[in-house]
């Protein structure tokens, strides 16, 4: 099943779209060489053809609205429809960011209350809601830490990340101009504290950690690590990717973290990626508060205002006030769940992961001892005899109607298969997934060829990932121009 592009379906004898008048003066005084000399070659199609094109594309799509999506580290939980209702409230959708403060008190109050709620959940003093995604939040937090050290005349040029870290951690540190130093994981999958000690020095600006870590394991020595990091004058940064395990149970701020980023599109049920945009708020303890991006939202005499008078701020990191529609959805979720509901969500997420872990731990190898937190990492090395790898297992799951878990990450587990079921799936769904894994493992021993060919029943079959990476075709060209 394939779907031609609109440009390929064009029918020259049709009129094509009828565009509204531009509404601006055509003579903008632009230089002649910048003006278009002939009309753009837009596709010419009937409206039903266009509608069917997009409906077919939508039917080929795979999303959490259709099937189970256990993509490890991504917290692909269900996005409640109630969030959409809130985000479409007339008062929010008709706002313009250039309105004056007095006419957008409701929106400012939402930002103010959301900040308080998120601060309470993670145990920090203040938060910025501006960053547009997780990695943007990481970068924003590191810039604040950098400003903090510079103001003290400290020249720190290293950031420590674990070998199991998300790739965005070293990338964000590098983008801020830091040199990345890797700290090893011990055999139990947790940070090797001895190795950390040997890498700490007055050159280190921060240690970046997720807790629970990428293997879904709680870093039990976190308080001790925080003391070690703080003793050298460095800051401790919390990557919020895995917060879904901890809400209402323990708080990064209490563990000693100084800066915390959250992914509202993971933990707080706002849409991911293409369905986004995302939001990556960053919370900080008191000594980093002066560096928060401006403006902040302040309450004064029962009114809300934007505070631009923050001379030590690192500046704005996003136009206006962040991805406001996403923030509305997250706030709606928090209010709908309440504190008890969020705590139960985390408990259920951990329960679901442990249930599935036990089911999968027979057919696949699960190298690190449990119990796990909200996710676990299995290894497909046991299937290697028949030539079956993690990729083949993933493709086999796609064939069976499940989104594939994260594969080949974290890098410290060979043939890694990283599963995060989240709290929003029923036990029946988890059982069906485990049954599919058992079926595939059985097939790997009996008929590995069938797995190598998978998927055969989806819109596209096995893609040549190597060719795609070595010779990427990034632009469509008309057939006569290839």
């Amino acid at each position: 099943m394939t779907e031609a592009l609109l440009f390929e379906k064009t029918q020259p004898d049709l009129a094509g779209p009828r565009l509204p008048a531009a509404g601006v003066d055509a003579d903008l005084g632009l230089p002649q060489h910048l003006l278009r000399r002939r009309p753009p070659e837009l596709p010419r199609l009937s409206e039903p053809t266009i509608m069917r094109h997009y409906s077919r594309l939508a039917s080929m799509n795979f999303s959490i609205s259709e099937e189970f999506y256990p993509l490890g580290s991504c917290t692909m939980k269900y996005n409640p429809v109630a969030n959409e209702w809130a985000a479409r409230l007339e008062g929010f959708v008709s706002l313009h960011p250039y309105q004056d403060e007095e006419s957008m008190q409701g929106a400012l109050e939402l930002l103010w209350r959301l900040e308080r709620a998120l601060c309470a959940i993670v145990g920090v003093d203040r938060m910025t809601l501006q960053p547009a995604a997780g990695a943007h939040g990481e970068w924003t937090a590191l810039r604040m830490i950098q400003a903090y050290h510079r103001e003290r005349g400290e020249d720190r040029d290293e950031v420590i990340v674990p070998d199991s870290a998300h790739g965005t951690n070293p990338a964000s540190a590098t983008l801020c101009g830091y040199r990345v130093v890797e700290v090893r994981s011990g055999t139990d999958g947790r940070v090797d504290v001895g190795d950390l000690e040997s890498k700490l020095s007055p050159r280190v600006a921060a240690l970046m950690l997720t807790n629970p870590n990428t293997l879904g394991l709680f870093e039990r020595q976190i308080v001790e690590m925080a003391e070690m990091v703080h003793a050298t004058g460095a800051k401790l940064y919390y990557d919020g990717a895995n917060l879904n395990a901890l809400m209402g149970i323990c708080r990064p701020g209490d563990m000693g973290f100084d800066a915390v980023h959250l992914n509202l599109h993971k933990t707080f049920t706002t849409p991911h990626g293409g369905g986004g945009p995302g939001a990556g708020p960053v919370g900080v303890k008191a000594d980093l508060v002066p560096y928060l991006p401006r403006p902040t939202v302040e309450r004064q005499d029962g009114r809300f205002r934007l505070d631009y008078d923050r001379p030590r701020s690192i500046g704005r990191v996003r136009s206006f006030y962040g991805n406001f529609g996403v923030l509305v959805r997250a706030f709606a979720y928090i209010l709908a769940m309440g504190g008890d509901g969020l705590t139960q969500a985390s408990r259920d997420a951990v329960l679901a992961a442990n249930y599935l872990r036990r089911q999968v731990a027979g057919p696949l190898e699960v190298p690190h001892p449990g119990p796990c937190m909200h996710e676990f990492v299995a290894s497909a090395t046991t299937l290697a005899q028949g030539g079956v790898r993690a990729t083949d297992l993933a493709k086999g799951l796609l064939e069976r109607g499940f989104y594939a878990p994260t594969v080949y990450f974290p890098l410290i587990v060979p043939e890694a298969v990283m599963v995060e079921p989240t709290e929003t799936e029923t036990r029946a769904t988890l059982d069906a997934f485990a049954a599919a894994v058992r079926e595939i493992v059985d097939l790997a021993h009996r008929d590995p060829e069938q797995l190598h060919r998978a998927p055969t029943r989806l819109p596209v079959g096995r893609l040549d990932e190597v060719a795609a990476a070595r010779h990427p075709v990034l632009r469509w060209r008309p057939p006569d121009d290839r």
Partner: protein
Amino acid sequence: MPKRFYTETHEWVALDGEVATIGITDYAQAKLGDVVFLDLPQPGRELAAGEVLGAVESVKAASDIYTPVAGTVVEVNQDLTSAPEKVNQDPYGDGWLVKLRVAGALPELLDEERYGALIREAEA
């Protein structure tokens, strides 16, 4: 062919006079799978031993490459730009990555036997 030495991070180095040729090991290329891109330094760059020399990207992962010895980059394997698969096909030959003019004393490196033992241990 000069004798190869190895690192715990799976690079190899072969010394010819004061020029060191560096690559990744056969074990490393097998673990990475099909190499699709290499990020290599410009000639003239000075590197300390153990410093990140560049990165190798496969379909599965991107990994840093560390220089086993200190020195100045004198040559980069340009063929890899259009044919990164050479790293998979011939990691100790056509798939070499860079040549350095060695500076300072050589650090302690693994010989064939000790590197082989390291891999056997990792696979056990």
